[in-house]
């Protein structure tokens, strides 16, 4: 039904060769791949730390590694996963690659700045990596003072500087996206015709631009405090340690929406394409992204419920936390409603989308649990919270990320992935995931504190289940690694639009030419108008 791309055609991959053509590229697509490579490395690094955490927790006595090592393991796990994997994961790889294409632009507004952001991530990553190899950090990914400033003997500064530098990577990416969306849309691409993926990246970019600078300045103060001991966060010198927590979470709560919004964008695309219907309530879903981005800034204090924050502040933050739930609920319901009377395909990306919706629902609802003050007092700093955020970040974001990778793989590489293996791994990941993290809800409610590597015997059964799940999960994650690489060579050659999708990125050959489109497209339809592609030949190339 669709013409196959001619392999010899010049595209962004074969227009130049050699390391230099990659390291100095300004093509957003190549930069996207550089990011893909980088964040994958960090994912497996973080995964290796997770593996060691899970092995350690098999026995209650804590006899696999020492306390010190264990503390470093979960810290470096959190740092690698959050700052160097999940925050850049979707925006900087798939966002970088597809956002310009989806709005019909030749590139981002500032290609050189885009390349610079990748270098910043790499430099920041190297700093933190150096810290990890040189001896590690043991403060937890939250760097609470005064432990991190006065008491810890580990590589706090190098790690924090790494995060500081990579923060600028995030800021510049966000800035680039906002300008691109405002100024680079193809003729006819009005705001209400933008794919939801673009909307959600726009909302994400707002958070990156408004939130990240605050964590940057917080890290500077942490640095000053640790090096010069000036008292900003040190109670013996008149400082307030809780102030650090406010500043940290002012960024880090919105940052969780940096991690989830792009994933929601992907899911919107997937649900639509594989039901062949526009996303139900398109406008509501688009505005919900913006609402999440804005409201997300008002709730950070829900991480401080037992921190000696004032009772009144706690009430306000708890109250406001519930407002974020509404736009999230709107999205979940609209995705579900999209299926109604659709034409639903069970291709792998769609399986991941289903997985996302289900696990995000559980993760999100347990977010509402912990936003309830009386409940949170009991479970904060226990495995309940650990389970909550892994449900959203691993069950949600990574599912969507994998879904997106499968969905766009043909466009990125010009090759199809093997469908059978992909379905199998999606299933393994789903099962392994639940086995790993569901027991942690129970553990948490029973009172198992987080960041403990020696724990009372009665928690062992659940920990063993969790570790078993993690091994299944590891297998599930390794499979795509293998078959994606395999497909580069042996995969079926992909056509321009294998899924019958409407996005502009599918109106150009796979892999796309250097400047994305041979002719700047003119947009005349809403996003997701499938009557324009189904039953009609797509002429490309």
């Amino acid at each position, binding site marked *: 039904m669709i013409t196959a791309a001619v392999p010899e055609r010049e595209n962004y991959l074969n227009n130049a060769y050699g390391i230099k053509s990659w390291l100095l590229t300004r093509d957003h697509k190549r930069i996207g791949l550089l990011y893909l490579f980088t964040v994958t490395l960090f994912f497996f690094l973080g995964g290796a730390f997770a593996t060691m955490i899970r092995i350690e927790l098999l026995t209650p006595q804590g006899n696999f590694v020492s306390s010190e090592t264990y503390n470093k393991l979960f810290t470096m796990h959190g740092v690698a996963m959050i700052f160097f994997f999940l925050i850049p994961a979707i925006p900087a790889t798939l966002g970088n690659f597809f956002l310009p294409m989806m709005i019909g632009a030749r590139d981002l507004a500032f290609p050189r700045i885009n390349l610079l952001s990748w270098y910043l991530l790499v430099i920041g990553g190297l700093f933190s990596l150096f810290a990890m190899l040189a001896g590690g950090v043991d403060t937890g990914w939250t760097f609470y003072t005064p432990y991190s400033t006065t008491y810890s003997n580990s590589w706090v500064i190098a790690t924090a500087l790494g995060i500081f530098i990579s923060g600028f990577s995030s800021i510049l990416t966000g800035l680039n996206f906002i300008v691109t969306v405002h100024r680079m849309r193809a003729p006819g691409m009005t705001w209400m015709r933008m794919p939801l993926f673009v909307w959600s990246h726009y909302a994400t970019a707002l958070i990156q631009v408004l939130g990240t600078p605050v964590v940057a300045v917080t890290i500077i103060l942490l640095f000053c405090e640790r090096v010069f001991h000036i008292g900003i966060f040190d109670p013996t010198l008149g400082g307030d*340690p809780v102030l650090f927590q406010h500043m940290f979470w002012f960024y880090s709560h919105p940052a969780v929406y940096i991690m989830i919004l792009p994933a929601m964008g992907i899911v919107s695309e997937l649900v639509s394409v594989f039901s062949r219907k526009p996303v139900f309530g398109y406008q509501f879903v688009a505005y919900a992204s913006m609402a999440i981005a804005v409201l997300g800034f008002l709730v950070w204090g829900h991480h401080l419920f037992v921190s000696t924050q004032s009772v009144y502040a706690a009430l306000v933050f*708890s109250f406001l936390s519930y407002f974020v739930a509404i736009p999230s609920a709107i999205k979940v319901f609209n995705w579900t409603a999209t299926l109604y009377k659709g034409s639903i395909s069970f291709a792998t990306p769609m399986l991941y989308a289903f997985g996302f919706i289900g696990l995000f629902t559980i993760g999100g609802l347990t977010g509402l649990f912990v936003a309830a003050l009386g409940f949170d007092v009991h479970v904060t700093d226990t495995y309940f919270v650990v389970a909550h955020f892994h449900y959203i970040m691993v069950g949600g974001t990574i599912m969507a990320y994998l879904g997106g990778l499968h969905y766009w793989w043909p466009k990125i590489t010009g090759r199809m992935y093997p469908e059978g293996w992909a379905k199998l791994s999606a299933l393994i990941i789903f099962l392994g995931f639940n086995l790993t993290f569901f027991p942690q809800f129970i553990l948490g409610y029973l009172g198992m504190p987080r960041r403990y590597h020696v724990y009372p015997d009665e928690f062992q059964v659940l920990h063993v289940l969790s570790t078993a799940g993690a091994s299944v999960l590891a297998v599930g994650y390794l499979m795509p690694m293998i078959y994606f690489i395999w497909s580069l060579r042996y995969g079926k050659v992909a056509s321009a639009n294998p899924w019958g999708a409407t996005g502009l990125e599918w109106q150009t050959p796979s892999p796309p030419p250097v400047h994305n489109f041979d002719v700047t497209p003119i947009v005349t339809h809403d996003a997701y108008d499938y009557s324009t592609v189904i039953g009609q030949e797509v002429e490309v190339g």
Partner: protein
Amino acid sequence: MGKFPLFPEQASTFAPDVDHLTYFLLAVAVFFTVLIFCSIFYLAIRYRRRSDGELPHVPHGGLALEIVWSVIPFGITMVMFTWGASVFFNESRPPNNAMPLYVVAKQWMWKIEHMEGQREINELHIPLGRAVRLTMASEDVIHSFYVPAFRVKQDVVPGKYSTIWFQPTKPGKYHLFCAEFCGTRHSGMIGWVYVMQPRDYQNWLSGGAPAGTLAESGEKLFTDLACSNCHKADGTGRCPSLEGLFGKTVQLANGAKIVADEPYIRESILHPAAKIVAGYLPVMPTFQGLVTEDGVLQLIEYIKSLGPKPIVGGGGALGK
């Protein structure tokens, strides 16, 4: 392994409160999770793609529907908020008749001081059925006092006092955890809470050989640190008398008024210049570095013992 519980023990008055809230939250969560999962399963199978070229009809979105599924969840969340907040409010305000105890946290142990002078490390003995109020201080980093069976937790932040209270309802031995990451042996900063029958508790109290009550230790410190040189009982000289100070409203030199509670007295000892009593000169030296957090607590207890006033819990009255 042995034991394999799925639900924690209920051993304080808060435990049922929190658990009821949990049941509600669970019910909501199960309802929506089942709803979403079932809808997806049903719709995906019912409307699966039957032919490659099929193009479904596009229904129009419904504003009514959007409103329904925003407003209903919103209503539910407001119940969650109110319920959670009311439980929390109870947890935040100890009753006036609560039995006071002091806790000093440090890397990596819990030190507990009873009024009668008993000191314990990583153990806390309390009588059944009596509300207990802990005033907690940290000597180094942030720790968090957590007893899962009581469903309570509160951070202990260096540089200030924090308060936690509970009323045990079941005799037994319960886990005490440090829940805030505090360094290498964070997972070793654990202990036990023993809830005893009041009679056993009395026995336990008289069992040890305390060096004297907390207030008596404070009195000794008061002389050792030479506080008594300035602060005379009759209030003569350049210094205010501390008799009956605790719980009183103090007039400050800058015009403000403040109730003399534990944080105020702590501040008066460690940062005397911060709040000057009206009519006096800021000549009191700071005792920071000269007296430990335990010492400050003993001094406070001594000053409390000077007063005719009963201990003011601060509970009940909102603000002033």
